[in-house]
């Protein structure tokens, strides 16, 4: 694979349906990871989902049923077709920290992000997806689910109740 310039990386990620996805270049440095990383990764993903109460506008676009929404916030269950990804993979020096994770739809986005990274295999510089927020949803999907503002208001209320019950406010 030819080294990608920023312009070519942006063209490719747009081809994959994510023209507004910010990219970050890194020089992948093989990094040893702790033997217990897998267990810690699962614990971290669970903890990450409980921090999403401030991502109502992105979640409302996903049209999640109310039960899925609550299960997600409570760290009980991941709704279908949601993936949590590393911004910088552990083997390339990424940390097992909440700030190194983001969420997106598995199909098509997480799968296409995998393809985007795989296509750069062997390059000195790898362009990695690095969305600004904790959840990536392409802007072209618009805002608001079936219920529009009503859905967002309802989810905001649920999120506030959950946050309050945790003593976060």
């Amino acid at each position: 694979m030819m080294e990608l310039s920023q312009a070519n990386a942006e063209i490719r990620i747009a081809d994959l349906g994510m023209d507004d996805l910010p990219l970050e270049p890194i020089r992948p440095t093989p990094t040893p990871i702790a033997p217990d990383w897998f267990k810690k990764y699962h614990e971290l993903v669970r903890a990450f989902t409980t921090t999403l109460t401030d991502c109502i506008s992105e979640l409302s676009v996903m049209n999640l049923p109310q039960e899925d929404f609550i299960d997600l916030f409570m760290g009980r269950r991941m709704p279908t077709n949601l993936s949590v990804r590393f911004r910088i993979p552990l083997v390339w020096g990424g940390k097992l920290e909440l700030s190194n994770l983001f969420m997106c739809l598995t199909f098509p986005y997480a799968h296409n992000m995998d393809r985007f990274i795989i296509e750069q295999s062997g390059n000195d510089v790898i362009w990695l997806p690095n969305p600004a927020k904790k959840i990536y949803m392409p802007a072209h999907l618009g805002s608001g689910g079936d219920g529009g503002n009503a859905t967002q208001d309802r989810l905001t209320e649920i999120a506030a109740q959950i946050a309050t019950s945790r003593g976060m406010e």
Partner: protein
Amino acid sequence: MNTTEFLSSIKSRGATVYPPVSKHDVALANSALQSRRCAMFPAVFLDLYNYASAINLGNGYIFPPIEVSRNIIAPIPSIVDININLINTPEIRGKTIFGRNDLFWFAFDAFGTFYMLDNLNLRVLRKYDDPYRAMSDCLIAGKF
């Protein structure tokens, strides 16, 4: 382990098993893979597709012979579409990607060997003689 034992085991862990498609659709998928120089379905997969199309556990997926639609949720792409998109990827020449989760991809080759692959570069991380073990690892690693 056989296919029904595998499906029973994975269902008991919460997997969703989508209903099988026709043998004709499976045969078409197999020949589509062959014409693109991917590995054809090993016997275990042909047997699995008698009982199921896609299987999903969390973010772990076994891909179906034809796309599975899920109402408002994005469809599960077919194993053919997944592999067509990778046709210019030298790392998997001669293999067929059959599953994924958020950490690994999974493949088989023409000799019926199954593989866990790094989802960053498709490097082989593990080889499996037992295909059911490979499919279980693919799904269970995706469980929340």
